[in-house]
């Protein structure tokens, strides 16, 4: 199976899981911040623990991919403005009740307002590309 097809398949599983567990519901994200519903906290914490154990198991084994390549864990470094960006992201998260992954599940579910969030994210990424021209540190 080609790489693109593989990602398409894993994407389907991801979107299906996000939708079935309710991560694509405005109320679940809003409720996590207002203290009405902590289900999403449970989802994220479980995912972190499972991800942690899974990566450890890969490393405890051969530490290689299926094709024998050495696994290299990507490490995101923080820049000067990263935490400001994270706060902006958070404000958008609480406003729209969605994040870059869950809004895609919303699109599949036919949530029309999710399409606006999605369009805004593409435009916001474009704004970043424009700002980056004159602010290389961003």
């Amino acid at each position, binding site marked *: 199976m080609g790489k*693109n097809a593989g*990602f*398409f398949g894993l*994407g*389907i599983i*991801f*979107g299906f*899981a*996000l*939708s*079935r*567990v309710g991560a694509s519901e405005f109320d679940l994200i*809003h409720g996590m*911040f*207002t203290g009405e519903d902590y289900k999403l906290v449970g*989802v994220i914490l*479980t*995912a972190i*623990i*499972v*991800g*942690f154990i*899974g*990566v450890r198991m890969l490393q405890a084994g051969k530490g290689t*991919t*299926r094709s024998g*390549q050495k*696994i290299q864990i990507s490490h995101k470094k*923080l*820049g000067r403005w*990263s935490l*400001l*960006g*994270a*706060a902006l*992201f*958070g*404000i*958008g*998260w*609480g*406003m*729209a009740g969605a*994040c870059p*992954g869950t809004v895609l*599940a919303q*699109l*599949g*579910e*036919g*949530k029309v307002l999710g399409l*606006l969030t*999605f369009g*805004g*994210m593409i*435009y*916001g990424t474009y*704004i970043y*590309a424009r700002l*980056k021209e004159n602010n290389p540190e961003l």
Partner: protein
Amino acid sequence: MIKTILNSIFVEPWPFWAGGIVIGLLVPLLYYFYNTALGVSTGYGNLAKIIFRPRNLGWIKSQFPDSWNWRVYFIAGIILGGFLSARFSGRPVLTTEMGQFTTLVGWPALLSALYFFAGGILLGLGARIAGGCTSGHSIHGIANLHLSSILATVFFLIGGWVSANIIRILLMGGGG
């Protein structure tokens, strides 16, 4: 028996742990198959390139030489996954409903559209400045015990707490 199992997978909402296990497994699976970190928001750079076709933006040129790479297929898959989930549980194909935003805020369509578009801009811009989103930082990064991702997630949560509670108080009639 089989019907009950199928029903709880395809029709009923999943308990938190089921969603967490499936989503968390994507982190080792993506490394095992493709030596790739779980992450969604970078793919919006592909989409921005495909839609806006900028000719002279250095960041787009250097980071996204190939617009239609695996990130676009991953995004397309997530959309299809949401579609299948909604179909199996018999939800309408299109809906203008957005939970408590619809029931408690009740803004006219145009204003609601602007509101979600503005939220999206903050998500897109913020994710790029932060270097990742909920999947890349909060799940992949913390699962690998990266301090940078723990810090980013703390600021994601602070931002979300502030905006959600301001909305709760100003637009949703406060309280619970």
